[in-house]
């Protein structure tokens, strides 16, 4: 039966408070913290159909559907997750979680530091992909999910999915990593550093404690976003979207916005600076820089991936120059060396790194086919004796919404 793909509809974010300290990679720890998350679909009786979706730099727990108070803002992967969509919520129980240190409701630099009562600001500890995965594992415990059917993500989200296979090899059956990389290149780190420098040199940054001054380093954040955006698009895509188009008839011989591409970047930057937290931008770009599972294995990725037990779907896009196909192939090669099950697709799409968020029939039908296989493994139908939707409270963890 073919079902017309739909939306999961209006969704309500939930929060879970974790009272146990979380020890971080840096050696520091967070005394207690809150994670914001959303779920779609029903967890089956065998608890075997749960899928964790990990977000990238600027996204959140809001993966799919709409929020009642903002009916225009669909989740960031709404074309991927929903009834009849590649990750079909009629079959899977999908969890989206806002990572620690982000700015969409989970504990982060904007949250009050229990030691002072003031926002953490610059004192919020640097967290890593591995720390996020540890926090996600605690959320899985609280939701009663012993083993994910799949952990999936694009870009930085794919790094988290990869990290799951190494830190908790038995707690997921499939790893789906799209447009990702086993580590940043010098060029990737360089772009991050330019973005961070833009933020930190904004006079309104105040060393990260701008909250106390009632300001936001909007200009720096805007420039950071503009830089990021350039790396998300392919050169071909930019040429096609903007070319050398001018907003007016001819040159104005000045320095205000004249080219359409300038206008687009400024708009993206300004919009972003209104809702994103500058400290979070620093923190997440640093987490990107630090991710390198091969680091503890003398740079040998094959040795690093020895622990992985999951089956993998790795997808890259030909025009993605931020995390190009060759980076995904490194992961594939290491998995083949370990005789792991892996499907690798290299999608010939024009949209650069952003392609992982966009509609592309070859990409989506492949992910759909892969999730069909995963569904075939989950023996109990999600419609047989479903658990109550909010089964969140685990031992020692209090649910609050």
């Amino acid at each position, binding site marked *: 039966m073919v079902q017309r793909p739909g939306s999961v509809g209006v969704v309500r974010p939930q929060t879970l408070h974790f009272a146990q300290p979380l020890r971080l990679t840096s050696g520091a720890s967070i005394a207690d913290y809150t994670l914001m998350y959303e779920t779609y679909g029903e967890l089956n009786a065998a608890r075997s159909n749960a899928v964790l979706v990990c977000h990238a730099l600027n996204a959140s727990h809001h993966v799919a559907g709409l929020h009642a108070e903002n009916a225009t803002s669909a989740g960031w992967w709404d074309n991927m997750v929903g009834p009849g969509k590649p990750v079909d919520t009629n079959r899977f129980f999908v969890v989206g979680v806002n990572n620690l240190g982000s700015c969409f409701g989970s504990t982060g630099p904007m949250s009050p530091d229990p030691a002072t009562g003031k926002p953490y600001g610059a004192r919020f500890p640097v967290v890593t992909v591995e720390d996020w995965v540890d926090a996600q594992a605690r959320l899985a415990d609280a939701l009663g999910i012993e083993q994910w059917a799949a952990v999936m993500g694009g870009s930085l989200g794919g790094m988290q999915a990869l990290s799951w296979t190494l830190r908790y090899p038995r707690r997921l059956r499939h790893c789906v990593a799209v447009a990702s990389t086993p580590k940043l290149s010098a060029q990737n780190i360089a772009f991050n550093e330019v973005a961070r420098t833009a933020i930190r040199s904004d006079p309104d940054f105040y060393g990260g404690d701008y909250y106390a001054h009632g300001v936001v380093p909007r200009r720096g954040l805007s420039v950071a976003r503009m830089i990021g955006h350039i790396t998300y698009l392919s050169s071909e895509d930019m040429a096609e979207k903007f070319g050398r188009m001018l907003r007016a008839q001819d040159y104005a011989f000045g320095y205000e916005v004249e080219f359409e591409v300038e206008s687009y970047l400024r708009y993206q930057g300004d919009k972003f600076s209104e809702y994103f937290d500058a400290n979070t931008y620093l923190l997440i770009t640093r987490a990107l820089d630090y991710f390198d599972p091969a680091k503890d294995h003398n740079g040998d990725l094959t040795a690093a991936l020895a622990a992985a037990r999951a089956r993998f779907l790795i997808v890259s896009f030909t025009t993605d120059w931020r995390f190009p196909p060759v980076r995904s*192939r490194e992961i*594939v*090669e290491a998995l*083949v*060396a370990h*005789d792991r*099950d*892996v*499907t*690798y*697709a*290299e*999608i*010939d799409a024009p949209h650069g790194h952003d392609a992982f968020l966009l509609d592309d029939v*070859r990409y989506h*039908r*492949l992910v759909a*086919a*892969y999730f*069909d*296989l995963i569904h075939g493994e989950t023996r109990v139908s999600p419609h047989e004796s479903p658990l109550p939707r909010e089964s969140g409270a685990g031992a020692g963890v209090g649910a609050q919404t």
Partner: protein
Amino acid sequence: MTTMTLRSDLQQIADWIAPKSAVLDLGCGDGALLAHLRDVKGCRCYGVEIDDDNVLAATRLRVNVLQADLESGLRMFDDDRFDTVVLSQTLQAMHRSEDILRDMARVARQGVVSFPNFGHWRNALSLVAGRMPVAPDIPYQWYDTPNIHLCTLKDFEILAAQCGLRVTDRSLLARGEPVHWLPSLRATLALYRFETR
């Protein structure tokens, strides 16, 4: 489990592959051979394929398919990674036919290659009549064919020897059936099994 019967040339290839061995299929198409080897012989399999539709079809068969262009070589695979490497009806369409044979020898101890026999009598007759052959196994016009390196049985055997490959078995088919009498003229498809060292 796969329930479909294999095409006869793929069945011949499957018969040459040891149970529970590690197999790499270059240009694996829809993954039918690898799914069969996995389900019937318990082999550990990977396939390389460039075409989107084939990658999707192989994924649906739960085959480990890696989307890549064989022309860029087999760098993804370590030396001696596989027991058998298969190149089925792909050699004739490759630019670097010799390189791929040498690379196959690097990654596996045993190889299997199949290709359309250009030495078939009908092809020769066509050339005598002044036209490039078009036949069921090579159904393209000369100006739009992907088959740029067609060869005869003897041509292949000479190249195999040059590459240090030791042919151990040969199966020659016409319409899926074995050909024993005048095979170099009557076979449409040639299958070779060889040791690589």
